[in-house]
């Protein structure tokens, strides 16, 4: 009887272990899937460890993907982006792409007041297509080469008033210096 009870207990412990193991494996699977969906950084680069890829081909484009009217983060970030443009315009082509706005007059005013200094600012009616790159949120900073290969992609807000913002600016600076 005692043997039967202990066997039963063991069975329930084994079952519990199986549940835990199953959950653990599931978590790992989900993690791997999420990792797999993120943009290929190539050459084994980790987050925040962007490296200049051997296979990249100049010229390079810095694409600033930002939302239109109402995105105060985009407006807050514009000074940083403008400073980067001033510093690196001799190295990389800056292009601003915005999702646009249904009220075209308001969109025009917004784009004027957003004050990005680049030659190219483009309201993109197919802005949603950028989501194919698995960009989690906007504004996003994206660097690609002429063959369309993405070398750098970050969505952290580059706000100098925040420590993580300063880190982000530092990362982009370091990357641009290597170009």
């Amino acid at each position, binding site marked *: 009887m005692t043997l039967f009870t202990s066997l039963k207990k063991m069975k329930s412990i084994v079952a519990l272990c199986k549940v835990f193991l199953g959950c653990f494996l599931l978590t790992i699977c989900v993690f791997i899937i999420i990792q797999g969906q993120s943009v290929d950084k190539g050459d084994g680069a980790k987050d925040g460890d962007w490296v200049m890829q051997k296979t990249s081909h*100049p*010229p390079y*484009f810095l694409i600033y993907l930002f939302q239109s009217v109402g995105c105060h983060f985009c407006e807050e970030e514009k000074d940083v982006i403008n400073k980067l443009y001033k510093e690196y315009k*001799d*190295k990389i*082509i800056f*292009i601003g792409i915005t999702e646009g706005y249904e009220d075209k007059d308001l969109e025009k005013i917004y784009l004027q007041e957003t004050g990005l200094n680049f*030659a190219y600012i*483009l309201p993109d009616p197919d802005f949603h297509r950028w989501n194919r790159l698995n960009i989690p949120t906007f504004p996003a900073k994206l660097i690609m080469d002429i063959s369309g290969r993405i070398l750098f992609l970050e969505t952290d807000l580059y706000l100098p008033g925040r420590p993580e913002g300063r880190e982000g600016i530092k990362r982009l600076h370091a990357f641009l210096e290597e*170009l």
Partner: protein
Amino acid sequence: MKLKVAYLIIVLPLILSCRNESFDFIDMKTEKVTSIKEVSEVTDVTAFGDSFVILDGLSRRLVVSDGEFEKIEVLAHRGKGPGELWSRALYMTSGDHIYIIDQSLHRINIFNQSGFIDTINIPQEGLSYDITCYKPDRLVLGLIPVNTDKLYSIFDMKEKKFEDDLVPADQYDNPMKKLSMNYTDSVCTGGYLFVAYMFQNKIGKYDLNTRKMLKEIQQPFLNMDSTDYDAAENTPERFYVTKMQVYKSNLYVLCYDMNSISKGDELKVTTYLSVYDLELNRQKIYKLDKKFRVFFIQDDIVYFFKENEVYCSSL
């Protein structure tokens, strides 16, 4: 009878012109010669006397090598000083000297076989992406069409200023498309400028005296008589033109098929080396089963470069 002959004379050319254009590819086998350990990635190659001059855009190095790629001498390293190379975007051409344009420093470094000679600063009128020799004191520079609608300008090296603009940029509403579709490589010979549009699979011939376009062709690569030919797949953007060279009165154009990159698990890329006379009439097309972006022809031997590896084949 006369009527039948007249009918044939009228109808036959029509029938013949309606036939699909067909041509044979020549399979080109390449053999690996060596790896150049002083170089990370060969981005451009030219010849200077009996030597090869190799530009390494990744390591920002300029090396000179003998014909067997055994004796290597480094002429320039990374840096911002005189005779040093800084940008990842470096472009080279050769004439009386070797000229290398350093994109972000807006300058041209001049070398000969033994080393650095001089630096010429160029006006900051845009990002340069291409360079070719026109006359001993004139270069043709390609500028990315951000603030301009011209792709090339003649640069006077004595006066250190741009002269005439050449080659109007193709216009597109989307600025990204405008930049990429107008990305080109060029080569200059006998007062003519040949411009290959990398993503349009298009080659144009311009007269540098009159500044006018003389001819423009599209490269039809797929064998249109083959059973697996699908006209919808034969888009100009599919073929990525990378380099051109004039050799023995012929123009050689290297390009690879971007469609073949994503097919299947195994990376299979077809590269084409097409040969035209200087009137842009097609002579032949070589087909290679490896991806090459850089080539150079010397003494009827074609050298292909992949990272720091050198392959060769005979014409």
